[in-house]
């Protein structure tokens, strides 16, 4: 495995890293890992580095890069939204890998806004044969509410805590526990992503997913316990009953990890599962991916 600098486009290049496998075969798919929010291309807890290196160890070319204005890529002029720019810039990187390495099929991966960008790019670019998402767009179902309230309803400790609080207020007219100080950070020195994540209407995403499945695009959708709108393993499929996913969709749910996957155990598990899935997709996709008429 060898890593090289990725520098694509002029006059303001997109910057990242290409991870080349020991034995490179341009017939195999390449994996591109996309930015999450404003975290640079190393990824949350170095997740993007771990995924690209693991994928390359299995013989696939992999890349991670920063969209313009994020991480090591300087801002480009223009008035387009992130959604528009992210499509063009990811296509720019695919063009580059196609031109310089001869790769024609791509698998996009991303967490949070990276998951959204992977989906949006797949909709527009036929070279994308599969997407691996962590905490993708998701929508509640009737069972979601049951799963949400079940732990509260059936845990004795929570009832005891609730009743204690009520009793404390009644008996002592206590003002209650002061709110936790979550403002330890001075906003003047603290910057949060300017990208505001808005889930599109469910029907719109269902139509998009139907287009992807019609094209044979494989999807590996992972959810963490940090995604408040997701509560059980089968929710993703259940929330899109009109989409004929068939075996194109794989879903994994990790309720005991957080959104940026800080726990080492889950980091290893998710990297390993995504890598295995990518290898499987690469082996199966030539026969499955149908060109759009």
């Amino acid at each position, binding site marked *: 495995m060898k*890593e090289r600098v990725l*520098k694509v486009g002029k006059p303001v290049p997109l910057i990242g890293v290409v991870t080349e496998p020991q034995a490179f075969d341009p017939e195999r798919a390449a994996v591109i890992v996309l930015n999450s929010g404003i975290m*640079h291309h190393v990824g949350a*807890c170095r997740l993007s580095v771990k995924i690209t290196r693991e994928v390359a160890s299995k013989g696939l070319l992999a890349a991670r890069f920063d969209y313009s204005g994020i991480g*090591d890529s300087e801002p480009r002029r223009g008035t387009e939204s992130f959604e528009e720019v992210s499509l063009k810039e990811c296509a720019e990187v695919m063009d580059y890998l196609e031109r310089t390495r001869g790769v024609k099929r791509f698998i996009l991966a991303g967490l949070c806004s990276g998951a959204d960008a992977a989906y949006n790019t797949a909709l527009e670019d036929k070279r994308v044969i599969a997407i691996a998402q962590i905490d993708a767009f998701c929508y509640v179902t009737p069972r979601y509410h049951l799963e949400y309230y079940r732990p509260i309803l059936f845990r004795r400790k929570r009832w005891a805590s609730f009743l204690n609080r009520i009793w404390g207020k009644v008996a002592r007219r206590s003002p209650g526990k002061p709110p936790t100080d979550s403002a330890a*950070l001075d906003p003047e*020195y603290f*910057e*949060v992503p300017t990208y505001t994540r808005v889930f599109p209407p469910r029907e719109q995403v269902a139509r998009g997913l139907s287009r992807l499945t019609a094209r044979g695009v494989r999807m590996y959708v992972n959810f963490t316990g940090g995604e408040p709108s997701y509560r059980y393993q089968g929710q993703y499929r259940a929330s899109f009953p009109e989409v004929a996913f068939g075996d194109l969709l794989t879903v994994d749910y990790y309720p005991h990890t957080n959104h940026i996957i800080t*726990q080492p155990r889950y980091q290893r598990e998710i990297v390993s599962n995504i890598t295995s899935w990518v290898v499987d997709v690469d082996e199966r996709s030539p026969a499955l991916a149908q060109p759009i008429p």
Partner: protein
Amino acid sequence: MNPMFFGQSESPLYGLYHSPQSSSRNEGVVLCYPFGQEYMRAHRAFRQLALLLTKKGYHVLRFDFRGTGDSSGSMDDVEAEHWLRDIDDAVAELRETASVDRVSVVGLRLGALFAAHACSRRTDIARLVVWDPVLSGELYEKELLEEIATDAPSEYEVSHGNEMAGDGTLHFNGFSMSARFRESIKGLSLMDSIPSSVPKLLHVVSVETDQVSQLRAAWRAHPGYRYQYAPAPHDWNEVDDFGGILLPQAVIQAIVNWLEAQQRP
């Protein structure tokens, strides 16, 4: 901005070279990142510092220590001596890339501890900036362990996975320090090693603590020592779900101003 891999071929380091945006000075500045979640939160601040320095004519190289960021390897294979050599490699790379005679070094938190030690072993570093420095490897570990002990998740929260594992690996906010690395940094301390070979030192802090006072007292004897408090309250090691970053402009500007002031006759 020019990304590159440099250093030893068996363990290449990823770095970003920023060329001067105004008339070039004969001086380069190497930026040494902190570790873990602090590294993620400081990335933007380092880029900002690099850009401001290039506007003043400096050549700048910011790089990832091995086992971190885009550099090779994992923390399982790293010990303190590797990081000290990484700083040597970064200094050599900047001298060669920019053809500069003078090199200064800026380090943040754990990066400052390493920067000070690396500079102590050399005689060719013009200036050193330690920014919110970690005072010693032992104190850093103690700080993380105290946070683990006091910041246990409630029953409503998902654990961050912070723990001292059975094999001696310290997991903290998504990053791990192996037993080997932890052991190796225990010998590093700013309290008993003044980088006396560096003519000018800036100790800049965004929050004043007892540790800051201790270091001031220990380093005051150095004739080129300057202390500056640039208030910018924040927590480098905070972890959030959306990758919030810190941009303590007051500190960044203080560093640029100090480097500039030293240049004036």
